[in-house]
């Protein structure tokens, strides 16, 4: 029965050759008339769900902006921090607008646009906990969402004996902190602000800044046409004040001057 193997392999190779090889993704998107964009739904204020369970937030507004300017219908695909890059590389989405920060590891796999929103990563904890430097994290239980820049940074900066708990998505990371399963949480400052007013007892206060890591749109490698288009849209939106409006609406602050 193993004689059949070559046939199977040829078939598989044939299928794989049909992958967007010569692909110009921008042309594909325009032909289809729809663009699929990965957005968060567990990461307020960038993306969370309302009582209708539909995603809303800064990233969703940005996705709408780009889809509108491309003149295509927008399909929102909710993703987690862990699976957003596989979603892009395996062709499930065209763009990732999901609070994605830039890192050397990621740049080997995907491309990035220009930044569209500010993001500060830090370690947060209850008001009365005395922590001011990474060394103070020794022996502490810190929750973080696996695979995010905050995970990479925390793993780098925290001392050897810090107890880092990694969760699959931000929902779980935040839930674990609020339930008291972790003492501290590593995440974004705006995210913490968004959950603070809901939870007066465990209001997370910034203890340590890990990284200034603005958000970028993630694209598949080599899609130059698409990347140029997205960058042009971001440039225009920055000069005409659209991005600033989005930032004001969700983060309650204007876009930083250096962006």
């Amino acid at each position, binding site marked *: *029965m193993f004689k059949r193997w070559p046939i199977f392999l040829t078939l*598989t190779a044939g*299928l*794989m050759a*049909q*992958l967007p090889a010569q692909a110009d993704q921008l042309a594909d998107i325009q032909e289809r008339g729809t663009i699929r964009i990965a957005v968060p*739904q*567990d990461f307020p204020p960038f993306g*969370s*769900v*309302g*009582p209708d*369970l539909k995603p809303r937030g800064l990233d969703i507004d940005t996705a709408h902006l780009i889809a509108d300017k491309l003149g295509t219908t927008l399909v929102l695909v*909710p*993703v*987690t921090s862990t*699976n957003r890059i*596989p979603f892009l590389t*395996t*062709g*499930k989405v065209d763009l990732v607008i999901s609070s994605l920060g830039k890192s050397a590891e990621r740049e080997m796999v995907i491309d990035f646009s220009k930044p569209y929103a500010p993001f500060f990563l830090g370690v947060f904890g209850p008001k009365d906990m005395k922590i001011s430097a990474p060394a103070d994290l020794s022996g502490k239980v810190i929750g973080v969402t696996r695979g995010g820049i905050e995970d990479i940074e925390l793993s780098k900066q925290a001392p050897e004996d810090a107890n880092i708990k990694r969760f*699959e*998505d931000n*929902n*779980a990371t*935040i*839930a674990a902190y*609020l*339930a008291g399963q972790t003492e501290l949480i590593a995440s974004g400052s705006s995210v913490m602000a968004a959950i603070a007013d*809901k*939870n007066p007892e465990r209001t997370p206060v910034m203890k340590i800044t890990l990284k200034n890591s603005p958000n970028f749109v993630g694209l598949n490698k080599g899609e130059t046409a698409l990347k140029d288009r997205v960058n042009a849209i971001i440039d225009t939106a920055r000069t005409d004040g659209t991005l600033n409006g989005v930032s004001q609406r969700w983060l309650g602050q204007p876009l930083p001057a250096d962006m």
Partner: protein
Amino acid sequence: MDFTLWDIVRNLLTGLQWTLLLSLVAFICGGMAGLALVFARLSPIQPLRIAARLYIELFQGTPLLMQLFLMFFGLSLLGLEVSAWFAAALALTLFTSAFLAEIWRGCVEAIPQGQWEASSSLAMTRFEQMRHVILPQALRIAVAPTVGFSVQVVKGTAVTSIIGFTELTKTGGMLANATFKPFLVYGLVALGYFVLCYPLSFAARRLERRLNATAA
């Protein structure tokens, strides 16, 4: 963005519908594939038997979660467009077929050898033997364990939440975070599954008891 109890329940009920739909699809498609597998598993052709055994071994010996991941990320590498819904339905179908095939094989093998011999002496083909003699009898003993296994299918759908299919568990996770009431939300989620599964467990037990009573 405030959620009333009704908002929570309403959204969970929507998730419950998807759980139900996914369970039905997996059970029906898995049942059909399972039937084909039983034929392969009991076939006189050896390579077919071996292939069916390997298939069953593979799906019974690996976590459903891994099967889901592979289906979800693997098929799209082959250039096939796969949504979370499709990957979930396909993985659960394959998973279900492997278990049902094994359950049904047990039932077929419980039919006394004499039945095969008698029907072959009537010059029936193997398919006819199965169709007219063996399966009708096997069916009678298969009903209870099959209904019992359907509970595992319903519960299996919960794992699809991890690849982002918005069924009951995933809806629960989103709500737990949006409302900050994990105890209430997960309690309701558990209740939702119980309402789906308990009648099935109960029916399976009833059927089994009735079968034992008639057999005795």
